[in-house]
């Protein structure tokens, strides 16, 4: 990494030219020299070379490697492509009479999402506070809190759900735990980023008046982050309903269980019905959530 001063030094001999370099010169710029040009008043302007070619070459090379690794082949796609639509074709028309068997698990899925999202969102608050660098000065505490959030976030929900089925048995409880953990880690990160960017003026004023940390958090920080936090929670809930459909696959209850059964028995009209109801539910929930989030902002 060479910084601006050396660049200035290099041309300062010519004295009538002023060098204007906005960014630092990276190693890339040392290999591919920036182009120089002079403005009318003699100012020297450097335009760094575009990084696009190098990035393109990298993407292309990795694509070729990936094509080789995954046996990607266009001919297969073209010749056998219509096979993809066989299952979709079989789903129509959906078996409308099947709705009464879908409704129960669908409601279970919504219940799992509601209680999981709520619990996760509430539990995220204390950890997010501990993970914000403007609330806690202790580096070790910060590291631990952020580490917990990062690890939980990294665990795929499906794996959490699978582990939860081992511990809590098959059923909605396992799904609720998986959704709760996911929400907890996602919102925890979002919330601590919000808290860190909050305006600290009111907080300082209250501290100066002798208020305690919990009190300032409640009165000075919370009102600032609350709308965004609620909005993020709703968004998370929205996604959870959709994601909960997958969790049934490992036995974590809800609509996924019904879906899995019907797919394995090749009852595609029933699968079609599941999708119709799931789609309607998702649209409805997204609509409500969208409305509420608009009100919040």
């Amino acid at each position, binding site marked *: 990494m060479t910084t601006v001063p050396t660049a200035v030094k290099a041309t300062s001999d010519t004295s009538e030219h002023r060098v204007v370099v906005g960014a630092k010169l990276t190693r890339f710029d040392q290999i591919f020299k920036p182009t120089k040009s002079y403005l009318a008043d003699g100012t020297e302007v450097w335009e760094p070379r575009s990084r696009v070619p190098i990035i393109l070459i990298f993407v292309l090379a*990795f*694509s070729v490697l990936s094509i080789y*690794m995954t*046996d990607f*082949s266009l001919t297969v796609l073209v010749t056998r492509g219509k096979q993809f639509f066989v299952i979709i074709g079989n789903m129509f028309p959906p078996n409308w009479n099947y709705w009464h068997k879908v409704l129960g698990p669908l409601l279970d899925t919504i219940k799992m999402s509601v209680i999981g999202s709520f619990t996760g969102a509430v539990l995220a608050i204390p950890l997010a506070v501990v993970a914000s660098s403007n609330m806690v000065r202790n580096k070790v505490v910060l590291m631990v809190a952020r580490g917990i959030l990062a690890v939980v976030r990294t665990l795929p929900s499906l794996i959490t759900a699978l582990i939860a089925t081992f511990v809590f048995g098959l059923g909605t409880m396992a799904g609720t735990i998986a959704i709760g953990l996911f929400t907890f880690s996602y919102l925890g990160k979002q919330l601590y980023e919000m808290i860190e960017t909050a305006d600290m003026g009111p907080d300082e004023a209250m501290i100066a008046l002798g208020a305690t940390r919990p009190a300032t958090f409640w009165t000075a920080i919370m009102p600032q982050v609350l709308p965004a936090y609620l909005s993020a929670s709703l968004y998370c809930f929205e996604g959870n309903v959709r994601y909960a459909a997958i969790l049934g696959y490992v036995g974590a209850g809800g609509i996924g269980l019904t879906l899995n059964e019907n797919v394995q028995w090749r009852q595609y009209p029933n699968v079609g019905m599941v999708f119709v109801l799931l789609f309607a539910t*998702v649209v409805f929930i997204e609509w409500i959530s969208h409305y509420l989030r608009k009100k919040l902002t």
Partner: protein
Amino acid sequence: MTKNLSKIDPGVKDALLDATPVQRALLSEPRSWRRNIIVLVILGALLAWSSSAVDLANMTEGGMKIVNNIFSGLIHPDKALLFSLSEKSVAYLLFETICIAFLGTLVGAVLAVPLAFVSATNIVPAPLALIGRTVLMAIRTVPVMVYGLMFMRVTGPGPFAGLMTMGLASIGMVAKMYIEYIEDLDTRILESLDAAGCTLFQKIRFGIIAQLIPDFLSTIIYRFDMNLRDATVLGLVGAGGIGAPLIFAMQAYRWSEAGAILWGLLLLILMIEVASTRIRVKLAQG
């Protein structure tokens, strides 16, 4: 001030008329307790209704034992699996997963561009945009592994099916984000380019692409990150990647094997996340 007064309770109004400015500010705060109570009641009812999902009846007695086993598996991972380079090793499987996610994201990101343009309300008439959005929403509703099963008919089991699944599953979310950026396009820039006498091609190159590329790239990188996480789902249906070995190992209670794979996966995802966050911060700052 008088305008605000009309919205306030009559009782408070009297107090406001002979109050100091500070008191006045305090009294004229919006009184939303009624709304808050309604929201709380609805939330409480929802929670009470959904509390039946919390059901400990199926809890197995060996639950704690399994938790212990998982932790011992994580502490003593199968080192042979973790550090060898054969076709069944963690490194190979992770690389395959990266390839699936990479190419899948690329396919999805490219296919999403035209879909996003025909669903943006500032490009096409509203009814057409609505159709586009509904299609995108339908794509997002179908769970990933169902796509996996569909593609399996086309390509047979293996990473190819996984890659196509990732591509299709990415379209829904990526296109949704694209639409938002397209609708946020600053048209004043196009006007000024027009005024400067630019051709249509120049307007697209410097007016539209220049505005969209950073946001699009940021979305794609974010989606790559997500696809890598979701790649475990593909394992459920046998569409390649590291998911299947992990789930098999867990269902067969081979915890040291599962531990090795989990360590690899966690490290990879954390690394990719750090890298992707860095690139996205750079993109956002221009």
